[in-house]
């Protein structure tokens, strides 16, 4: 506030102090929240997830990706903000927030969400090319998921091998919709869409008349071809180029490989 001339009234000072208390000046020192008791700085407008990621702090997540806007559907990133549950990928960071992340309570709930994903699809790691590079698998390791706990669904989800360069194995789809975002926002093709009804019917669908990937202009160089966090969208004729045991999450757990946004 500019104090123009000679006298600065007591009232004006009081008003200034009140404004400051309500809305702290956006200085770097004030833009800090607490994540599991640690200070995390943020720039106004960042979500809790974005700020934590920039800080190198891992919050478990599946449908969120630093390069895309939040989808907020997997709920793996649920944290407790000042005692209330919320998705860290959609809640804006505010000064002084107290956020719980890797507590036993939250990790227990996250593990249950993972177990439900594992029984709803057909996730057979030993025969999956994505094993070791898979976000779902690595997250389950991180959260010590020892069993699927629930009864298996074994849904029938035929693969789409129609495209010359790309295989689609819907058995592993976790409905994160990252391919939908990548195809729409980066490739400008809108090839993927979420569709179907019910637990077993709902999955990603292909927007061509036949429903086959071969009848779209999808290319192996598309951003959507490399975005899948699990083993649905896979390049053909490329298997075990990196042996099991030397893959991304064999080297270090996912919590120590926080991926920042592509510059």
């Amino acid at each position, binding site marked *: 506030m500019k104090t123009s001339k000679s006298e600065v009234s007591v009232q004006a000072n009081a008003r200034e102090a009140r404004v400051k208390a309500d809305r702290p000046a956006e200085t770097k020192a004030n833009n800090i929240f607490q994540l599991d008791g640690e200070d995390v700085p943020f720039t106004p407008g960042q979500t809790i997830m974005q700020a934590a990621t920039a800080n190198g702090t891992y919050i478990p997540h599946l449908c969120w990706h630093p390069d895309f806007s939040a989808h907020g559907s997997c709920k793996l990133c649920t944290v407790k903000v000042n005692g209330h549950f919320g998705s860290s990928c959609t809640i804006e960071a505010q000064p002084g927030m107290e956020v719980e992340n890797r507590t036993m309570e939250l990790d227990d709930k996250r593990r249950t969400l993972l177990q439900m994903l594992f029984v709803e699809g057909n996730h*057979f*790691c030993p025969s999956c090319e994505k094993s070791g590079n898979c976000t779902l698998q690595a997250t389950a390791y991180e959260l010590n998921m*020892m069993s699927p706990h629930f009864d*298996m669904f074994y849904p029938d989800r035929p693969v789409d091998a129609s495209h010359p360069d790309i295989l689609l194995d819907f058995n592993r789809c976790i409905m994160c919709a990252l391919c939908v975002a990548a195809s729409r926002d980066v490739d400008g093709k809108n090839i993927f869409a979420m569709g179907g009804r019910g637990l077993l019917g709902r999955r990603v669908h292909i927007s061509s008349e036949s429903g086959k990937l071969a009848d779209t202009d999808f290319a192996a160089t598309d951003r959507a071809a490399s975005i899948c966090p699990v083993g649905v969208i896979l390049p053909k004729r490329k298997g075990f180029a990196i042996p099991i045991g030397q893959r991304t999450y064999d080297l270090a757990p996912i919590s120590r490989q926080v991926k920042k946004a592509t510059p």
Partner: protein
Amino acid sequence: MNASLSPPKKLRVATTSLAGCFGCHMSFLDIDERLLKLLDLIEFDRSPLTDIKHCGPCDLGFIEGGLCNAENVHVLREFRAHCKILVAVGACAINGGLPAQRNHLDLRDVLEEVYQTEAGLSHGGIPNDPELPLPLNKVHPIHEVVKIDYFLPGCPPSADAIWKFLTDLLAGRTPTLGHGLLHYD
């Protein structure tokens, strides 16, 4: 006084492979010379290693493989009835694994293709000897049928993972695998 000097009672352990490939048992043998240390602590009841046919009262039961036929269910229930602690070992016991890949196919279609129609296979007809256990319509993981106390994932779990699990359990700790030992593949 004398009680403390006598060697501790060995834990009695039973193992079996249901709808599995014996890979988990092979991985168990891969603990190599640690087997000798282990044999100071445990003794085997029913197991492919002893050829005892029925499970008696045991402290520990290890189940490899899922359930693909009626006999698997029978054996699993026998193990549950006799073992204080029952452990699901390997991917097939935990989520059905490779045998469960037939679950989206009709059982009769599978049997007809294998025994009657597929070229290159003998066409002797679908076996129906009364001594053969009937296949289940779908393959199931074992936790869907009996209570399982611990799960040891992997295809197979590595020898080090099995050793870590066993030593934790024998020492009275909650078995934990952690990064590098916890694998689903």
